[in-house]
């Protein structure tokens, strides 16, 4: 059973990746994250559903430090072909965190296929180092494990359904987000 809301999970991730590059999936996830934390090392993808993990993989292949990805079950399912690519090329500095609420919460709360299939099992079946958790403490310890791992890891986190009410739209200029992010990586 899920125990955390999305925003509670994001606060754990923000603390654990405070100075590391973090690619964040679109919709309510990007909005909720930006409502409490905005850093130059954050790259929220405002409308590129399905692309979060591929972008994170590219960054991790071009950067030597730890890189995090915050994806959703719906977004990962939209670009599921990235999982074998992660298995084949995934660098050890990459941690992909999938916040799984079993729904497309940004798209009128439609149920996602993650309600019916075991997407963590698919990642495991491909040979990817995979962790599953439901609590903030477990998420924190899994991120620490991932950062010390010798391979790419994917952490599946069961979260409560729905969105945090009262979160405003995130209307940042993507060109500025991209430039700030590239500069932040260059200065590290």
């Amino acid at each position: 059973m899920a125990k955390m809301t999305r925003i509670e999970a994001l606060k754990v991730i923000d603390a654990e990746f405070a100075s590391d590059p973090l690619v964040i999936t679109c919709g309510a996830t990007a909005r909720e994250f930006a409502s409490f934390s905005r850093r130059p090392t954050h790259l929220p993808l405002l409308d590129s559903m399905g692309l979060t993990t591929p972008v994170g993989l590219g960054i991790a292949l071009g950067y030597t430090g730890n890189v995090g990805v915050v994806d959703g079950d719906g977004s990962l399912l939209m670009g599921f072909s990235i999982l074998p690519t992660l298995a084949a090329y995934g660098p050890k500095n990459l941690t992909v965190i999938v916040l799984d609420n079993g729904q497309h919460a940004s798209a009128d709360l439609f149920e996602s296929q993650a309600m019916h299939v075991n997407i963590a099992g698919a990642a495991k079946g491909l040979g990817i180092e995979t962790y599953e958790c439901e609590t903030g403490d477990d998420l924190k310890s899994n991120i620490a494990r991932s950062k010390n791992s010798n391979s790419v890891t994917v952490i599946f986190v069961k979260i409560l359904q729905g969105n945090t009410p009262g979160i405003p739209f995130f209307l940042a200029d993507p060109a500025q987000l991209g430039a700030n992010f590239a500069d932040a990586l260059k200065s590290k």
Partner: protein
Amino acid sequence: MKEANAHLKALIEGLGDWGLEAFVYVPSSHSAPVIRGLEARGVKAVMANREEEAVGIAGGMALAGKKVAIVMQDNGFGNALTALGTFANSYHTGFPIFANTRGGLGEYNSMIHSISESVPDLLKRLSIRVENLGVSDSPEVWRSSTHAVAKLAQIQRRPIVTLFEALHPGLDIA
């Protein structure tokens, strides 16, 4: 496996002149000599399963400061359009895309022209610059154009597409 002809060798040389560090590709028999030629030079290669995946990976590498390119076929742009528009263009990620054309002289597939012929217009409607390299252009032009396009994509922080003619390695128009 067919070796690169003089034109495709020139494309490989042009990318070398630019200082290509990595490339992402979607497998293609027409582009195979380029892919194998770059691999033989020790350029880091990543194979993507779909074209939008390639755009995401290459864009991420570009934001991390790498000189990266995509090698693919033009009929795959249908898959890549949303990624090109909402990510690569919008976030100002600069990298060149080299895509072999399909559906022209020597084509053996009866329907591939139905997407390939529209690709230049589709890309232009997305405000993506398109350059062309044909078999009537000299290898010297292929080399210098390849270098110049890659450099421009990096300077402008935009994806730029080069559509190049490469007949199926199994066909010979001579």
